[in-house]
């Protein structure tokens, strides 16, 4: 797992200006995505899950996280990308999600961990002008990282598993 | 510093008394009624006993009488902790052998002062 290296990078970096926040970027298909690092509780190697009957296709199943039952979302399917067999680089990000009914722990499967990036408010661009092919509710903004476009995800909507009942889209 | 037994059926009262006294460096044991107080006192030795008056199982007056009947506690200071500023309870307590009384409500400073006086 590559996260130890990433953590080392994180340690060296000075905590920048006031509105600079750190995001954890990862790869999904050909594109980079990122989540607010303060929401990341844990990075785990891929493991098999227990399928939940009647669940949406993007809900991969359940894992046991030190005694807690945690649902795992296949982020590829959630964002409308094609499915992919897990490989040696596939990891599970465990995240803290704010839900209307309180704070929850959910996990999501991503292809590969990339880096810790610094994001300041002025760097974030609106996603309106791009056709990203993903539900815009999921996108917090876009960011240019070494001329690589990174999609900053709004994790609370991405991991809102019963949103279909609230958004009939 | 002395070893003190505090007897009260009210947990909040008891813990406040023992907290205050432990802060002062005393060693404090607790009992929740007269009977338990008597048992603890008989099994151990205390330099001072502070007891509530109204308690289930065995009240404070009875506890004082029993303690005074015990050779070990003939001269040990025993204070009553009571809201009843009325004469009857004090006299009853004194007649049973109480050294003195502390009237509830009291603040920690007052308790500390009285205890250090008695233990001097």
């Amino acid at each position: 797992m590559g996260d130890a290296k990433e953590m080392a990078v994180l340690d060296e970096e000075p905590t920048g200006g006031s509105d600079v926040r750190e995001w954890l970027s990862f790869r999904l298909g050909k594109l980079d995505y990122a989540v607010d690092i303060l929401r990341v509780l844990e990075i785990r190697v891929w493991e098999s899950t227990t399928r939940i009957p009647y669940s949406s296709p993007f809900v991969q199943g359940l894992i046991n996280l030190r005694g807690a039952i945690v649902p795992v979302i296949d982020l590829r399917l959630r964002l409308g990308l094609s499915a992919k067999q897990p490989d040696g680089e596939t990891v599970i990000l465990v995240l803290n999600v704010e839900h209307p009914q309180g704070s929850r722990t959910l996990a999501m499967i991503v292809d590969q961990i990339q880096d810790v990036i610094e994001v300041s408010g002025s760097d974030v661009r609106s996603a309106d002008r791009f056709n990203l092919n993903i539900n815009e509710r999921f996108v917090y903004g876009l960011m240019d990282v070494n001329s690589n476009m990174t999609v900053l995800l709004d994790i609370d909507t991405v991991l809102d598993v019963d949103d279909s009942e609230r958004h009939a889209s | 510093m002395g070893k003190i037994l505090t007897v009260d059926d009210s947990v909040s009262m008891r813990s406040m008394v023992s907290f205050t006294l432990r802060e002062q460096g005393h060693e404090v044991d607790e009992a929740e009624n007269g009977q338990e107080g008597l048992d603890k006192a008989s099994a151990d030795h205390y330099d001072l006993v502070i007891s509530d008056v109204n308690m289930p199982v065995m009240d404070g007056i009875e506890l004082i009488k029993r303690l005074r009947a015990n050779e070990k506690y003939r001269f040990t200071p025993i204070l009553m902790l009571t809201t009843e500023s009325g004469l009857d309870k004090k006299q009853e307590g004194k007649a049973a052998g109480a050294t003195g009384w502390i009237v509830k409500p009291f603040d920690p400073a007052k308790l500390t002062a009285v205890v250090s006086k008695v233990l001097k």
Partner: protein
Amino acid sequence: MTDPMERFRNVFFEESAEAIDAIEQHLLSIALPNVDNEVIHDIFRSAHSLKGGSATFGMTRLAEFTHVMETLLDSLRNGERSMDQDIVDCLFSCLDTLRSLVSHYQYGDEIDGQKVDSVRHTLEGLLSSSAATAPAQAASAIDEDSSLQWQITFIPERDVLKTGNEPLRYIEELAELGTITVEVNTNAIPSLSELEPTALHLQWHITLDASAPVARQDLADVFMWLEDEAELIFTPLTPAIPSVAPVSPLPAPAEAPAAPATAQNEATASATTPAKETPKRTQQSIRVDLAKIDSLINLLGELVITQSMLSTFSDLDQYPELQRLQQGLGQLERHTRDLQDGVMQIRMLPIDFCFSRFPRMVRDICKSLGKEIRVDIVGETTEVDKTVIEELTDPLVHLVRNSIDHGIERPDVREENGKPRTGVLTLKAFHQVGNIVIEVSDDGAGLNADKLRKKAIEKGLISASSVLNEQAVHELIFAPGFSTAEQVTDLSGRGVGMDVVKRNIQGLGGHIDVRSTLGKGTTFSIRLPLTLSILDGQLVKVHGETYVIPMLSIIESIQVPQDKINQVEGKDVSFKWRGEFIPVLDLAKTFHCPRESSFEGDPLIVVVESDNRQCGLMVDELANHQQVVVKSLEANYKRVDELSGATILGDGTVALILDVGALIQRVKVH
């Protein structure tokens, strides 16, 4: 660190809730005109500690209110007045006031000042009607005289040492007021042969020189504890204000008046004690935050998992030295199980926590309905998991209200029918093979099958031609839509029907029955698992997936030849079991299992039952039968139909627990 005072305050709040509940219990136990003295003492003691605590923690309004209450109770205790209905009623209304005052201090809730005042007026009214026999508090005008110089004569009694008093301590304290000159009079010391070492024979004459005037009261305060055990004469030497003659306190009473008084109280107590048993003393206990216990249970769940994971290392042939390890593992397993039992025990509370509210509730409702009902409680010490108690309360409230409203008749009607005027409502709890059974019964009118049947036909729940035995008709009251509308009185209220009660009970993994005899009464019987957090489960495999079926709902598991299962369009629909056709659910199809079955042979059918309906669940194989720790799916996910939760297995993976009731319901819908 939290402020310790804050902590004690919180303890006090818990205590006051208990004290108020205790007062309520005692009040309910009073059957006038006989009043057990011990009951009054206990009520007094509770009010008294409320007063002491609230005063100490600066809760003035609560302290003032409890003071008035205490005064009234004190006069009852002393026999100055006797308990009557007015007082009982007034004390009941005090309870509500106490609760609102406590929650004011605890949560900052608004106080209804008028209400508090009105209850207080009632109290004071009762007090003044007893012509305030309280002795005029030593209001003897405090002598205000003070002086810079005092002459003090201090003659302690011979036995003063025996109360733990040390005369020197008082003299030292006196020294804090100014400079003192002490003269000891040893004249009274007897000859050595007569000397009693524990007696005091000394007298002191002390002169106090202070820099600021010292009041007589200050001196009296120093010797306060000894005022009855010493002769004290305070003489001002340079009076600042014209002095009064030296005050010598009354001599100590020759004998303690206490003992005979107590004896007398006991005598009257035993004379008036009715056959009623006194409430049990609470056992020793500590308060623990439920969250702490839950985290302990979670940890224990982990331990159970680790333990069963270790026990899979059993390849003895390959590693003979494993034998000793295995013995250790066997022990670990036993200890883990014991520990699990023990920890679960911590969550268990006597059902009394739930039952205790009913006497008061029934009393209040009876008052407004003009009915006379006695509540009998049996088995209140039966223990059950705290969460079960919480979930049980609402259904029980409904059943009790139902009995009062519709079960027990008015006193005159009862008399006409040759029954005693007072109806009896019985709440009973007992354990039965891993379950708790709770019964709510009344000796009222009973269910009228003809009426029920007519109503069910009117409501279209059954057809006029349907043949139902009496029991089946009785059970119609649980049918959805049966007991709403008409039954909504202001008491049964909220339009909640028996169907909701039944659903709630089933939601807890239990079931409810009714037994009734016309004219004799009705009994509702609720059966629930003892705990909601641990479940006795049968693990089953379905196309490589593992599910847990609660043992409670399994009747049997049988292998059924494929050709004995009736199929419609290739779907298994039913098979004959014990002479009757019951529906079959293929779990793999029901749950859309994506994988193929690796299993061959005749289908295995687990016959399950809920709500008196059976169903066969088709599975590939049966795995372990074990206790599982139930975890909610809703904590991080959402409710899933036909599943009641999840658990973690020995290998650390998650398995889902079937909601058998919902699965059977599904068969009916399809």
